[in-house]
Structures are given as C-alpha cells and as structure tokens.
C-alpha cells in the first residue's frame, strides 16, 4: 500500500509514487521535516480560524431566526442577544482567511490524504469533502450580497433576504467545518 520514495526517502501511497509525485526535486523541501511541520501548523491554524468563523456565524444565524425576547436572561437568551450586524465584517474576513488557507492546504490534500480516502474506500467522507470544496466556492460568491444586505441600514424589506443569505452561509460553513474535520480524522494530523 505504502512505498518509500527513492528520491525523497519519504513514505507515500504506492499510487502516489506511480504518479511520479515524489520525483520532482524542486518540491523536495515539502517532504522534509520542516515541510511537514509547516503543513501541520497550517492545518491547525486553519481549524482554529474556522472555529472562530463557526462561532460567529452560529451566533448570527441564531439571532436572526430567534431574536431575544425582553426579560429572558438564561444562557440561550444571551446567546441570541448578540448584535447580528456587528458580526458581518468579522465573518467576511474570517471566511476569506479560512478559504485562502484551505485552498493552500487543498494542494497537499490532493496529493496525499485523498489517496488514503480513495484506497480505504471512505467514499462518504470523500464525497462530503468533494461537496465541501463546491460549497465553499458558492459561499465565496455569496459574500458581496451578504455584505450588501447587512450593510443597507437593516431595512425591514430586506430582512428575509438577509436572514436567508445568513442561513445559507451558515450551512456552507457548518458543512465545510464538519467535512474537513471528518476527512482529517480519517488519517490524523502529521501521519
């Protein structure tokens, strides 16, 4: 299943060696210990930023669907009581940063982790990750409209558009977080 690459001396799936993935000397530095640490740091940072994004969008989506009622003071009520509009810029920046980091990590996934998913027959995890990449792209295109409808001094006539754009973005972010987490768990960090 796994073979040691004759050039870079690293372990790779046999199919990766057949594809010639370890042949290019210019890419050799990415196989070294420093390269591995760099990828691990990137994956962990990506996960942490995604976690912040998940928290922000969840606060916002709950507050638009179930705004706080007067007098409620328990944990759930406080969770709903956030100022939804204050989250918009943070969500956009976090989404862009997370997507950018994910798009860099995706190159590594494509030449290593994906083989593990394919060879292990983890088709549901594989499919969930395939959907994630498409949902993330669709989410990127939603951001200008999301920003615009939240920025427009919160006119009541746009409330439904705002609510559904936020919900769709929340769905994309939750799916991406869970699919990425599952795909990562199949193999584990640094293995």
């Amino acid at each position, binding site marked *: 299943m796994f073979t040691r690459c004759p050039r870079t001396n690293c372990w790779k799936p046999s199919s*990766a060696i057949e*594809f*010639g*993935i370890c*042949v*290019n000397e*210019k*890419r050799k530095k990415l196989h070294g210990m420093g390269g591995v640490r760099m990828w691990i740091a990137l994956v962990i940072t990506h996960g942490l930023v995604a976690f912040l994004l998940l928290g922000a969008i969840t606060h916002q989506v709950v507050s638009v669907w179930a705004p706080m009622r007067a007098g409620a003071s328990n944990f759930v009520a406080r969770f709903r009581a956030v100022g939804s509009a204050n989250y918009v810029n943070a969500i956009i920046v976090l989404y862009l940063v997370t997507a950018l980091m994910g*798009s860099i990590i*995706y*190159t*590594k996934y*494509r*030449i290593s982790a*994906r083989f593990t998913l394919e060879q292990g*027959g983890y*088709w*549901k995890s*594989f*499919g*969930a990750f*395939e*959907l994630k*990449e*498409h*949902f993330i*792209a*669709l989410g*990127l*295109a*939603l951001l*200008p*409209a999301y*920003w*615009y*409808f939240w920025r*427009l001094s919160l006119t009541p*006539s*746009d409330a*439904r*558009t705002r609510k*559904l*754009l936020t*919900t*769709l973005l929340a*769905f*994309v972010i939750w799916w991406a977080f869970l699919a990425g987490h599952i795909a990562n768990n199949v193999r584990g960090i640094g293995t």
Partner: protein
Amino acid sequence: MKVHGRFASFVVTFAAVFAIVYYLAVAYNWALFSYGPAIGQWTLFTQAAAAGPTMYWYGWIATAALAAACVAALVAFLPQQLTYWLWPGFAWLVPAGSIAAFVYLLRGYFMR
C-alpha cells in the same frame, strides 16, 4: 420587493450567475486554468499536469467569477426599467439550487 441601485443589481446577479456557471464549469470541466500540485505546474484551461494529479478547482472558480462579474456588470449598467424583474431573493435562491444540484451530481459517493 425590488433591487435598488447598481451595486445591489451587481451583487445579486453576481451571486446567482456564479452559482449557475460554477455548476456548469464543474459538470463540463470548464476550467480557466489547471494546477498540478505534485510538481507545481500551472497550465491554461484543462491541460493535464505532466506528473501527478491535476486540480481544476481554482480554474472552475476563476471561470465562474469571470463570467459572473461580466454578466453582473452588464446588468448593473442596464437602465432601471430593464432590471425590474431582478429580485433580491435570487442571491440566495439560485446558490441554494446549485447546492442541491451538487448533492445530486455527487450522490454516487453516498450510495456506495
């Protein structure tokens, strides 16, 4: 409820057209460029990398973004009378439809 202003027309059209073109780009592999991650090779359109797998995802996004920007810019500069049909809900409805279409397109992975 109507869309008011050029920028509003632009963002609504951009989200809707991107969702449609991105789906078509994936389904028919209309990538503006491709990337071979194993050797760091960028190629124009859908040319396969010299070694290792080829990634089209960046190219699909570029194709959809370019098409959506062009159509959205065109719609934004049309006279207001010609864009009366533009509904703000297209910004979420069309991408939601695209998400459903992707689930259908990739359903095979979940039925094995």
